């Protein structure tokens, strides 16, 4: 006897050609399923190309709402002849394969069920508009999949209206196209037994929304009071500033005058982009730039200036996998070490490490506060997986705290001080000095900002002692920041002798891996790093565990290294490194497999 179909537990994958409009088809499906109250976790794997190359869209649906990348798909929609064979091979035994009828299945594997659909023919015969046919062809499979998985057609219609929110004109044609596919299913496969179905659920998606990390970060910039953003397009960071532009047009424009309460400047390159942001930060505005690896490599000199002249600025790095141009549309966590000490000489920077879209939103705001507070560049390290995929998240909180503008002296303060102040004096012994802004109407307000040697009163100096004093203060300032940046999130509920440490999007694979390990009888504790400099509390976590696995998405174990440098020598030896670096988001399996191997290798006391 065959077991009944599994419910709400499957991985869907569409294999299509990029630039063919399949992206909107996939979004419609995602929205439709989400509207059924079912947790979704989409991952879009696209080429560094505009049209004609293979692209995959993976939609993971799991009862527990796992967000990490899954392994092989249970349900495949195959619409790319170029990858048909490979795609077919990737399907889990027992899976369902919807494919263009024209593709040959002669002698193909028999452990999956095939649903051949004459997409091309249907498109020709059933879609009138020639101009729209290319786009709409993909809507056909939306309908077919709806039939296959038992998605109510109303949900599909909802998904279409959501996806084309801004252009209602597109609704009906898309609904019609989806309907054609849906009808085709009913007519041809309705009676076929299937292995996976979807059923509406309740409770799991309440107060949840779907949003991409870059959009969340852009929203964070708006709520964080960003008024100057300078950027140069680069994948996967472009959509952050493009979302910011959209928000600006909607929320920052004075309806009467048409005046904009923000300047989003498309710079000529990344050097200029960061330079503009620093110029604005120096003037007192909350300024940012957003880029990816290659841009970071061009920002070294200006970052050093902001560090040494102490100018607030926020730099988003939406990481893609390098080195060099690398794979522009693949994800990575390999900029960590480089960004931490970016620029020549002795420099160390504040780095925020969001792991969720919610933290993209929160940390964007935190970053501006920290930049103003510590008068320094603050990096926010996201990645392609977080920035460019839709994630399910609790609705964001409206910020209750005012901006923290840091130590700024205005004309009144200067009057009270009778002009007695020095730009780089460590008045509060926390390494953070007071600054004034250009345009402050007091004779003592002005000072000279420079990247060359300066003393406590911002006078040029080449004096050895003055130089060393200043560098020591900068180190002191960094120590002050250590306890001001977002603290690690610790879960020691497993009371295990084993601990995991991760950061950023690796978090989602860890969540799943911990469940798997528990099932295998190996519950593990977990600390998620959320910022550099590293919190001293990490030492405690390591002290509490015999073995601590540091999991990250880069080749060289960059976080593993940073941790070993911070830990007391006797604890550093407890760390083990697990790394994933093939450009795809890390799956839970890439943690459990090596971890179990390493555990077996552990000599029994």
């Amino acid at each position: 006897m065959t077991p009944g179909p599994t419910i709400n537990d499957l991985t869907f994958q569409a294999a299509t050609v990029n630039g063919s409009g399949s992206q909107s088809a996939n979004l419609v499906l995602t929205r439709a399923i989400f509207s059924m109250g079912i947790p979704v976790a989409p991952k879009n794997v696209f080429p560094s190309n505009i049209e004609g190359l293979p692209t995959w869209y993976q939609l993971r649906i799991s009862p527990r709402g796992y967000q990490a990348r899954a392994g092989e798909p249970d349900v495949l929609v195959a619409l790319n002849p170029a990858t048909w064979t490979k795609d077919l091979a990737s399907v889990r035994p027992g899976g369902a394969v919807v494919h263009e009828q024209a593709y040959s299945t002669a002698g193909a594997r028999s452990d999956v069920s095939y649903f051949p659909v004459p997409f091309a023919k249907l498109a020709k015969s059933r879609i009138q508009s020639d101009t729209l046919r290319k786009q709409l062809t993909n809507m056909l499979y939306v309908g077919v999949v709806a039939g296959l998985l038992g998605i109510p057609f109303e949900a599909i219609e909802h998904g279409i209206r959501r996806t084309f929110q801004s252009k209602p004109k597109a609704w009906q044609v898309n609904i019609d196209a989806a309907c054609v596919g849906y009808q085709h299913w009913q007519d041809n496969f309705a009676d076929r037994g299937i292995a996976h179905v979807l059923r509406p659920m309740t409770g799991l998606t309440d107060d949840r929304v779907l949003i991409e990390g870059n959009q969340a970060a852009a929203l964070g910039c708006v709520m964080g009071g960003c008024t100057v953003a300078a950027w140069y397009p680069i994948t996967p960071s472009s959509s952050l500033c493009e979302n910011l532009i959209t928000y600006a047009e909607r929320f920052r424009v004075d309806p009467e005058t048409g005046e904009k309460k923000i300047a989003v400047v498309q710079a000529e390159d990344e050097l200029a982009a960061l330079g503009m942001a620093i110029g604005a930060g120096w003037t007192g505005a909350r300024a940012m730039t957003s880029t990816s690896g290659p841009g970071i490599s061009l920002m070294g000199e200006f970052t050093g200036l902001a560090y040494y002249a102490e100018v607030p600025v926020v730099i988003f790095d939406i990481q893609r996998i390098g080195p060099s141009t690398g794979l522009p549309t693949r994800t990575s966590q390999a900029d960590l070490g480089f960004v931490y000490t970016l620029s020549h000489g002795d420099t160390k920077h504040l780095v925020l490490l969001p792991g969720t879209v919610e933290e993209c939103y929160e940390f964007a705001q935190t970053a501006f506060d920290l930049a103003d507070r510590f008068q320094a560049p603050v990096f926010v390290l996201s990645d392609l997986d977080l920035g460019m995929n839709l994630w399910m998240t609790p609705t964001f909180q409206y910020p209750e705290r005012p901006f923290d503008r840091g130590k700024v002296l205005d004309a009144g303060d200067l009057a009270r001080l009778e002009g007695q102040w020095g730009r780089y004096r460590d008045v509060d012994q926390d390494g953070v000095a007071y600054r004034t802004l250009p345009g402050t109407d007091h004779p003592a307000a002005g000072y000279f900002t420079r990247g060359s040697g300066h003393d406590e009163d911002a006078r040029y100096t080449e004096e050895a002692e003055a130089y060393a004093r200043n560098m020591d203060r900068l180190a002191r300032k960094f120590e002050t920041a250590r306890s001001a940046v977002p603290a690690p999130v610790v879960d020691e509920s497993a009371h295990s002798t084993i601990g995991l440490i991760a950061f950023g999007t690796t978090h989602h694979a860890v969540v799943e891996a911990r469940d798997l390990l528990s099932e295998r009888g190996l519950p593990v504790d977990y600390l998620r790093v959320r910022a550099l400099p590293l919190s001293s509390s990490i030492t405690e976590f390591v002290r509490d565990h015999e073995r601590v696995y540091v999991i990250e998405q880069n080749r060289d174990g960059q976080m593993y290294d940073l941790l070993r440098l911070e830990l007391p020598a006797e604890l550093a030896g407890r760390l083990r490194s697990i790394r994933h670096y093939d450009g795809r988001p890390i799956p839970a399996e890439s943690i459990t497999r090596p971890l179990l191997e390493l555990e077996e290798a552990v000599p029994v006391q």
Partner: protein
Amino acid sequence: MSATLNRIGLARDAYKGAATTLCAGCGHNSITNHLIKAMYELGVEPHMLAKMSGIGCSSKTPAYFVDQAHGFNGVHGRMPALTTGAQVANRKLLMVGVSGDGDTVSIGLGQFMHMMRRNVDCTYIIEDNGTYGLTKGQFSATADVGSVQKRGSVNTYQPIDPCAVALTLGCSFVARSFSGDGKQLVPLIKAAIAHRGTAVLDVISPCVTFNDHDGSTKSYSWVKDHDEQIQDVTFIPFFEEIHVDYEPGTIKEVALHDGSHLVLKKLSEDHDPTDRIGTMRLLEESRERNQLLTGLLYIDETAPDFSTRERLPELPLRDLGEEDLRITREDFAQHMSELA
């Protein structure tokens, strides 16, 4: 005798800066003095002035004038970006940048051009000596063909003329002058400050230590011998009466954004400073004649500056607070529901 005060009640000394550390006789020092004179006579408010620069001997000069103002000595060749950012963040500031030929035409060429393209509201002075002074006398990209280096080598590469480049881009204010000619330079500086948009002033400023010898085309003597002034320039600030008595036809008057006026009395060439193509021709021809054309080359008072084009409010962005910048609770909730 008590110092005479300008219209905002400040003495000339209020426009001085730290003592120069440049070589005695360096052209840059004269330019500093011309800047001080111009700002004193205009009655510039020190606290609203932002002095910007890159790296080089020339880029040190902002330290030598208007001590009370804020200054930003950035990194080499990147002053345009810093200036652009500072200007959009607080468009009320008076941005005055001082750069060098190496800073602007070598490492900084790209930023320089894109700043002009945006017409960022600032005065951009190039202290042009055809050499890298601070690194001890290598050729810069403004060195003329055949110009001889102190160590003897001869430059064989065409110079990049910042004025020619500026004209090609339609920069809204293009002028050239000479550090030794305060009579011409001071009114041009005033006009550049009064102009709203990018005002480029290429000022030949001899480097006495590395590029003032025979064979150099950036030496005091060479410039004196080849200086070809287009006009006699008079600046009439908005707070003064205009009274000019020239026989008609000989002068041209240009009204500037802040209500000031430029009175140009044509000298050599017949030249219309609002005719870009004509000026390009004139510039190229004078160069082929091996002459140095100085004066106000081109001006366009109609081009909107960057902040205007970006539709920024009069109130500086950096002065906006939570109420101005955060989405309202209602809109925020509404937007969240859209994402559900």
